[in-house]
């Protein structure tokens, strides 16, 4: 069945490997491994039956617990991600074959990345951390409390985003739809108890050499005396619980959250071990922000979001505040840019404003997911993503801005920050 599908695919006139080869020659200063990763994230991945059989749930990290869903709408039973031999991580969104994804197959008993008839690279599935086998005292499997990147503990304390309550959810996001599936299929808790988090981190730290950082992210919660007070207080509670596991007050950690005001941010920094801060602006254009992120636009606003990013720099330090954009949504229709050159110029101009102020900008490749409003649209060309990654990398070089907390090893989901390995 699998090989038949591959044979069918080979008759397709579209030849992505030719496109990749053309771009390798056009951008010799861009590493092949990062280009490959970017294109895999752009086009998606399909695991053949043979490749799936090679994924051993006792050894490898399987999908299902990530905050966002997949392009084929199926939650579980596939590897979460894999690594290329240069240490590059590739987080995967399994994608239907009809959409022309890259394929992971078993060739000569080796997991191989395949495109058309071309065998591109041998890959390795991420290994599962030891704490995945444990349960908390309250009886929750620890893999539902925290997940793992190869070198990072990833905690999602609150998987519900309150913007969805007022139909002000970001148009590219499927967080709440994915949560409903996770609750049904995995009994995923929506909101974590700080004691469970403390216990899970304690267990995770028993595995020597496994983790270098902790990352927290959640849906937005505008409740409280001031908007987002409840979100801030909850993060403080969770971070204090995590902090009980460390000798030092501060520990390598990242908070991906809403853009808080100075008072909220001051409390967060003073009362917890947090070391870096990432309020994601999602798109670098005010008009598109208002359209694509109505909740963020209503509760904070584009100009205020940027101001809060810059205001966070004196607290966390240059380079330890960053923001992520979902690259490609600026081209979504009907209101997005019609032309990639124009879109790129706009993004890099706005990015320079932030980077010159000490705020890093990173991107993820937009994976249109069926559970989101604009999930039926297409993302940008590979060349667009290459130019964007190079543009952001060159701005970091120009302004001497490091990106230690959100790099290839701590996160592994930003093609541009993979380039920071050689900064």
């Amino acid at each position: 069945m699998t090989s038949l599908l591959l044979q069918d695919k080979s008759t397709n006139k579209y030849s992505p490997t030719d496109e990749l080869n053309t771009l390798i020659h056009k951008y010799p200063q861009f590493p092949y491994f990062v280009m490959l990763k970017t294109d895999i994230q752009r086009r998606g991945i399909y695991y053949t039956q043979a490749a799936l059989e090679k994924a051993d749930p006792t050894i490898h990290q399987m999908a299902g617990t990530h905050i966002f869903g997949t392009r084929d709408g199926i939650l579980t039973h596939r590897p979460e991600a894999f690594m290329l031999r240069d240490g590059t991580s590739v987080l995967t969104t399994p994608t239907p074959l009809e959409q022309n994804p890259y394929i992971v197959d078993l060739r000569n008993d080796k997991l191989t990345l395949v495109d058309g008839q071309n065998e591109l690279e041998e890959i390795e599935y991420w290994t599962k951390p030891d704490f995945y086998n444990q349960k908390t005292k309250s009886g929750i499997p620890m893999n539902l409390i925290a997940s793992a990147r190869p070198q990072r503990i990833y905690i999602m304390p609150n998987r519900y985003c309150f913007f969805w309550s007022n139909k002000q959810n970001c148009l590219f996001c499927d967080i709440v739809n994915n949560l409903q599936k996770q609750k049904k299929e995995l009994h995923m808790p929506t909101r974590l108890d700080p004691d469970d988090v403390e216990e899970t981190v304690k267990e995770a730290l028993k595995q020597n050499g496994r983790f270098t950082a902790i990352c927290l992210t959640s849906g937005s919660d505008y409740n409280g005396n001031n908007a987002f007070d409840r979100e801030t207080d909850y993060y403080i509670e969770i971070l204090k619980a995590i902090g009980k596991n460390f000798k030092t007050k501060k520990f390598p950690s990242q908070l991906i959250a809403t853009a808080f005001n100075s008072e909220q941010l001051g409390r967060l920094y003073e009362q917890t071990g947090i070391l870096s801060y990432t309020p994601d602006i999602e798109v670098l254009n005010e008009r598109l922000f208002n359209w694509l992120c109505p909740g963020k636009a209503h509760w904070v606003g584009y100009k205020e979001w940027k101001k809060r990013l810059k205001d966070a720099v004196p607290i966390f330090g240059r380079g330890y505040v960053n923001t992520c954009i979902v690259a490609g949504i600026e081209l979504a229709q009907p209101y997005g840019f019609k032309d990639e050159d124009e879109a790129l110029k706009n993004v890099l101009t706005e990015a320079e404003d932030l980077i010159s102020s000490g705020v890093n900008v990173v991107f993820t490749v937009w994976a249109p997911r069926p559970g989101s409003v604009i999930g039926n649209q297409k993302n940008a060309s590979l060349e667009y993503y290459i130019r964007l990654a190079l543009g952001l990398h060159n701005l970091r070089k120009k302004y001497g801005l490091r990106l230690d907390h959100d790099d290839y090893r701590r996160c592994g989901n930003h093609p541009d920050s993979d380039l920071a390995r050689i900064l």
Partner: protein
Amino acid sequence: MLLDSQIRELLQKESTIKILSTIDENNQIHTVTKDSLQIYNDNLLYLEYLESSTTNRNMTFSMWFKNSVTVLIVAENKISYQIKVTPLKCIISGPIFQNFYTETLKKHNNTDLAAVWLLEPDKVINETLSIRQKEESIKRPYFKHLDRLAL
């Protein structure tokens, strides 16, 4: 198999000096000693203790853009070999990484491990002076001061 028994033996000796040379994006050479250089199956391996080291950065650069990397080993008795290598794999997590991490903590207190680099040998050159002199006198007889031939 490019690495013969003598090289394998030399690499195992603590007294052997092991040097790694890399180049950066501006073609600047960076040379350091790497005591952790060792045989790993038919390849070489070294342990990178510093994530931000120039060598780590240059190794990534070499792997990405196929720049050359050179290993030099020098034994107590002046026997030396130069080994041209290609970075094959950068291991930053998983069971192999964790084994070396544990070993590093045991050996060097308070030393972290950033990466395990696997290097594939491409070419081995015996750089021992006496051997190179013999070679030159056979292959390039013209390269000699005359007084050394005088009666």
